[in-house]
């Protein structure tokens, strides 16, 4: 029998039992749709987690003042100022993978506006800081270059500080006293929420680094250009580990450390957290796909069940076909094609249903779903394979009937 004739015969056989064919397909339809939806939901969740982590600064390396050993006593992290603004500029100049390096001075204390006061952490920053943190300004403006270089008495405040000092009132152009130094609010930062470690990132106050150094904090004369930390942003797509290695090498050179001598700085990054989160969301997506695959498998068993019933019910038909010249393999092909046709048609309907369900979920429930072509191809391919796999046994059973027994079957 040629292919066109085989397909025609199979289609005819399926049409004769419309209801049964539809119910059999239902298993495959649900299975394929479930796989597509589950993978879409899993991928969507994974993408959202990745996005969140990225917003927290997954491509950021923190360089902290390190310990200095003097007379056998090893100081803790930050006990001695060992990194400088110049280290940051050198990093940007010498390491290609680094997009920006923002040196910061940090201190904390009471800030006062009018009759309100609030205890917060404040930072002295350079223009790179907001770029590194990807932190836009909600109201007002950024520092101007003259204010940056000339220790201008200006300040940017976080949302939490704004709420606590000014309530509902407009904080712009108001004066805040930070350690008795009056600074004018020029802008309010956008809300950033909690950090990975649970700190309120909006409870902060930013001022030009020179202002912090000369007017507010006051740093010892000897190490005048020292900073507490340098926040380094690595370029998108660059290798974090490699950037970190280059950075360490550069700092050791600049600090004239001999081979074998301990680093006088600490380096931290968030990529480990990112990896853990990614791994866990991958496991989640895999789990969803596995659950959906089970329903696809059950659909396949449904096909086998129906095909076995069909072979028994159509034994006389098989006998007749053999009597008029069908060989065993013609019968095998016919039943196999019927099974594959059931699963392929079911698979196609399942794809349509799966895609529309995923889109509907995204729209109605607001869950992020990411449809992937790979998942769709996988589900459809799997459906076809299930048709062949579960169709083969009944088809072989049919093909092995003896014509005389099949014809006489009651």
């Amino acid at each position, binding site marked *: 029998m040629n292919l066109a004739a085989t397909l025609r015969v199979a289609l005819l056989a399926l049409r004769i039992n419309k209801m049964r064919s539809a119910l059999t397909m239902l298993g495959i339809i649900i299975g394929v749709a479930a796989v597509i939806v589950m993978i879409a939901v899993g991928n969507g969740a994974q993408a959202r987690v990745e996005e969140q982590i990225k917003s927290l600064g997954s491509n950021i390396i923190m360089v902290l003042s390190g310990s200095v050993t003097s007379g056998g006593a090893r100081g803790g992290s930050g006990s001695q100022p060992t990194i400088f603004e110049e280290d940051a500029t050198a990093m940007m100049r010498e390491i290609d993978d680094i997009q920006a390096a923002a040196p910061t001075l940090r201190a904390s204390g009471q800030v006062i506006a009018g009759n309100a006061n609030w205890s917060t952490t404040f930072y002295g920053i350079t223009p790179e800081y907001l770029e590194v943190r990807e932190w836009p300004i909600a109201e007002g403006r950024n520092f101007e270059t003259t204010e940056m270089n000339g220790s201008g008495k200006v300040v940017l405040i976080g949302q939490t500080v704004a709420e606590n000092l000014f309530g509902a009132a407009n904080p712009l152009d108001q004066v805040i006293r930070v350690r008795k130094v009056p600074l004018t609010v020029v802008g309010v930062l956008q809300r950033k929420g909690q950090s990975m470690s649970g700190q309120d990132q909006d409870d902060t106050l930013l001022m030009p680094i020179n202002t912090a150094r000369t007017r507010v904090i006051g740093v010892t004369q000897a190490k005048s250009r020292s900073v507490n930390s340098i926040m380094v942003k690595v370029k998108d797509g660059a290798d974090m580990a490699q950037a970190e290695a280059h950075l360490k090498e550069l700092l050791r050179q600049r600090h004239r450390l001999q081979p074998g001598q301990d680093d006088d700085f600490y380096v931290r990054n968030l990529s480990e957290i990112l990896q853990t989160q990614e791994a866990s969301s991958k496991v989640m997506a895999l789990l969803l796909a596995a659950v959906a695959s089970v329903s696809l498998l059950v659909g396949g068993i449904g096909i086998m069940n129906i095909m076995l019933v069909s072979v028994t019910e159509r034994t006389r038909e098989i006998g007749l076909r053999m009597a008029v010249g069908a060989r065993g393999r013609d019968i095998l092909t016919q039943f196999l094609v019927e099974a594959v046709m059931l699963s392929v048609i079911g698979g196609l309907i399942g794809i349509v249903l799966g895609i529309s369900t995923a889109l509907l979920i995204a729209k109605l429930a607001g869950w992020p779903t990411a449809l992937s072509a790979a998942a769709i191809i996988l589900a459809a391919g799997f459906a076809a394979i299930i048709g062949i796999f579960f169709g083969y046994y009944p088809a072989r059973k049919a093909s092995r009937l003896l*014509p005389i027994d099949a014809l006489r079957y009651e």
Partner: protein
Amino acid sequence: MAALIQVDGLAKDYQMGSTLVHALRGVTLDIAAGEFVAVMGPSGSGKSTFMNLLGCLDQPSSGRYRLGEQEVSQLSSDELAQVRNRQIGFVFQHFNLLARTSALDNVTLPLLYNHAPLAERDARAKKRLAQVGLAERMDHHPAQLSGGQQQRVAIARALVCDPQLVLADEPTGALDSHTSIEIMALLQQLNHEGVTIVLVTHEHDIALFASRIISFRDGVVVEDKANVPNDAAALLIKT
């Protein structure tokens, strides 16, 4: 006339539980091309087994069977399928038409296994349906046809591959007497056109339409005689 069928010591044993049943105990006979043979006998006489062996639906336990130029008792099941397709047409007692399938598609069925192209399949099937007088009812399903019409569709199906031999197993068993005679008239007409027909029946008056009557009992041939056939077409005009 050249022998179309030559059987020599044809025997068939069945294992029924623990006992061995000798359904056919060595049959030797020739059937010439163009003959119209009726095979008779009570149930259990071996006539159905003989038919199944002639139709290549079953293989003999021993003995030889030559159909046309070919020794078929040694063929594989695929080769037998081809012999059934090309050289033999079957007509059954219960028609064995595919339900919910048009008369035309039923007649086309053997051609599907003949690798005939679609246009040729349709043309040949239509020609045969016209020959049995059902040109008007090609699109009817078996359930929409009378018993006699269904058997005509079955005969058209048997003829569609242009076989040398038509095997009819109780073709009138499920029909009333008038329709039976109509069917016999059709078979006689085909026989006149040169098709060899072997008919199994247990009704004596049906056997009388054949030109040769072979009687079986207990797995052997007990009588093999020539017969002056009754003319079924003439009988139809009379009634």
